[in-house]
């Protein structure tokens, strides 16, 4: 007589322990990867958060008709007006070296800023006006507390004399930290205090637009044909293997292809989102095709068979009944592919998009750069203040990546039919 209960209970405690061990190992793995993620996010946010604030210095400039002709604002020398104002604020500064330090407290953009403020508001003209201008990168580092004043003067970027001047300005309320709108509304610059991400953001958007317009219709077209209509033979096997291989090809290879074909043979303009988008489309195509085929395959064959049985042609059956059900999966694949393309730099290097571009591009035929390229260029810049910009640009890129992936998930949740 076999005691089933006893047999079923045989080693039960041990099996339960193994179960618990496995589950704890799984939780541990998730915890460790989460910890890495948190460390990464915290360090990036800590480095980049400062970008929200920007130091400004107030200068009292003379804008009488002698200095600035109201009829002809562009003719005035705002640089000398600015320097005069700084000398007035610190009359004790007289040596050439000291003066250079004084002028270095404000950004090289400051003279242009005064001009712009006057153009926006001509009522400022005539008499003395106190205007806020952007502080230089080194002054900003001091004002935001990133300079270690304990160090000997020689080891600091900001000298004792500059610190004394900045302390005086701070005490008089002539220096402040304000919201840094410029970071989001201006293009790249070699001066960290005025460098912004708008040009690279616009470049990325235009590039992705071209990439999407090219790769999405082509990708789902290829997927539909291969999955629903193509005869299953050696040829289609070969194509399938090649598509899977292409998905694993390093992205720089697509850049080289773009260089020789799009730029070389077709003679398209260098550094433009058009070519960038075309290259990235080549890279995204396999991803979209594979995801779309998987989406088509997940639709139960009964849908198609029912349509065919009722007299629909194969094209009607696929387009009216299979495609609408598979669409969310295809879109998800496309968005994931786009997110991948958004983070690419290597292929863009080959086609000239790793470039210093100040102007914000407005069409796909204007030279542009992309967000990850901007991060790469800023990370390479010697100026210390670019560290903050680099981290901030990474935050912006991550935000867009997370948004895109979120949209992919929401789309799937909302539209997906479960069987």
């Amino acid at each position: 007589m076999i005691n089933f209960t006893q047999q079923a209970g045989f080693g039960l405690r041990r099996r339960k322990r193994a179960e618990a061990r496995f589950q704890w190992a799984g939780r541990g793995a998730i915890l460790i990867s989460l910890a890495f993620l948190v460390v990464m996010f915290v360090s990036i946010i800590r480095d980049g958060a400062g970008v929200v604030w920007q130091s400004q210095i107030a200068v009292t400039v003379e804008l009488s008709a002698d200095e600035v002709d109201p009829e002809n604002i562009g003719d005035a020398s705002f640089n000398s007006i600015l320097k005069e104002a700084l000398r007035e604020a610190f009359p004790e500064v007289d040596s050439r070296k000291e003066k250079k330090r004084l002028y270095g407290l404000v950004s090289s953009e400051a003279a242009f800023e005064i001009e712009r403020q006057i153009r926006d508001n001509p009522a400022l003209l005539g008499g003395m006006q106190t205007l806020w201008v952007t502080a230089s990168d080194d002054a900003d580092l001091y004002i935001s507390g990133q300079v270690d004043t304990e160090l000997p003067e020689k080891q600091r970027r900001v000298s004792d004399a500059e610190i004394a001047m900045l302390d005086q300005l701070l005490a008089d309320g002539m220096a402040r930290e304000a919201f840094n709108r410029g970071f989001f509304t201006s293009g790249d610059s070699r001066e960290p205090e005025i460098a912004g991400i708008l040009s690279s953001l616009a470049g990325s958007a235009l590039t992705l637009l071209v990439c999407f317009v090219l790769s999405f219709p082509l990708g789902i077209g290829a997927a539909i044909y291969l999955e629903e209509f193509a005869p299953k033979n050696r040829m289609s096997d070969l194509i399938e293997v090649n598509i899977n291989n292409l998905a694993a090809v390093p992205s720089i290879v697509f850049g080289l292809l773009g260089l020789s074909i799009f730029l070389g043979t077709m003679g398209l303009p260098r550094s433009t989102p058009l070519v960038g988008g075309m290259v990235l489309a080549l890279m995204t195509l396999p991803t979209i095709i594979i995801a779309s085929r998987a989406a088509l395959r997940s639709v139960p064959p009964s849908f198609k068979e029912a349509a065919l049985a009722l007299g629909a042609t194969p094209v009607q059956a696929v387009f009216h009944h299979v495609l609408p059900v598979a669409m969310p999966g295809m879109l998800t694949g496309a968005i994931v592919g786009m997110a991948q393309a958004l983070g690419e730099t290597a292929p863009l290097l080959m086609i000239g998009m790793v470039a210093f571009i100040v102007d914000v591009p407005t069409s796909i035929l204007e030279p542009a750069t992309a967000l990850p390229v901007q991060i790469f260029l800023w990370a390479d810049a010697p100026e210390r203040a670019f560290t903050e910009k680099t981290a901030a640009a990474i935050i912006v890129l991550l935000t867009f990546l997370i948004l895109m992936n979120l949209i992919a998930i929401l789309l799937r949740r909302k539209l997906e039919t479960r069987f």
Partner: protein
Amino acid sequence: MSVRLKTLVTTTVLTAAIAAPAIARDQINIVGSSTVFPFSTTVAERFGKSTDFATPIVESTGSGGGLKLFCSGAGVDTPDITNASRRIKSSEVELCAENGVNDIVEVKIGFDGIVLANALGNDPVELSLQDIFLALAKDVPNGEGALQPNPYTMWNEINPDLPAVKIEVLGPPPTSGTRDAFAELALEGGCKTFDWIKAMKKEDKAAYKSLCHTVREDGAYVEAGENDNLIVQKLEANPNAFGVFGYSFLEQNSDKVQGSLVDGVEPEFELIADGDYPIARSLYFYVKKDHVGVVPGIEEFLAEFTSEDAWGEDGYLADKGLIPLSDDERDDWAEKVKSLSPLSM
């Protein structure tokens, strides 16, 4: 949309896309060295702001890559200017000539010092070029007129005055122009302090070059990538290591790292400018003369770059870390640029 209209639209879009490059460029196109990039972009930005011309586009492709693009043809679809952290080679001039690029204007813009730095908190060390060569070359003299694979693992084995720490130098990879310049100026400079090696130069130039330029591969020299900021960060984390990078990074990070004295000279702005500091290289850019007048603004850009405001001793490029040429040399080069006199090798 009728089928015919659709075809029409498609054809128009396609032709527009393919025919677009035929339109003339209205901005200057610059490629080349990543070392010259910070200076070139600074001038480009100021030029764009202070004139009515469009801001030039500056690509960072490396000196070699830049010259290859520059020499790939004479049409407006090729770059107008290329930056280089070394002088153009005669093979590159030939390549240019083959592709119809004949008149090249050379402009020397200044110097860049290469420093060997370690983290603050250590004593600054004093190295000679010979010490650097013995520490980093693959094969070194064994003291009896022959070569041996580099046996040194500690600095004080080379020179008893140096600290007793492991030789560990972080520097750029072979693809970098900084590495080329470092090999040529520092390693070769130390290499030829041995008379018999110097004599070798006349007999067997190839062997001499390979001996003097080859860096050891046993882990004492660590290729740390092209990003100099990364090297500075690694030095902070590893106080015993030394790093090789450009002077502007030393200047910006003086609160983290210090430059070693080389042959008794500190890597300081004035000392590099005077030519006292031994590891300094010249920076150049090259202009296609045929593009002057075709692409708008080239002459004005050149004038801006060679103005005292830019490359002078108190110019804005000096603030960015460019070591200016001497007054005479600046006058000389500015004159050449003004008359667009062609390159002579």
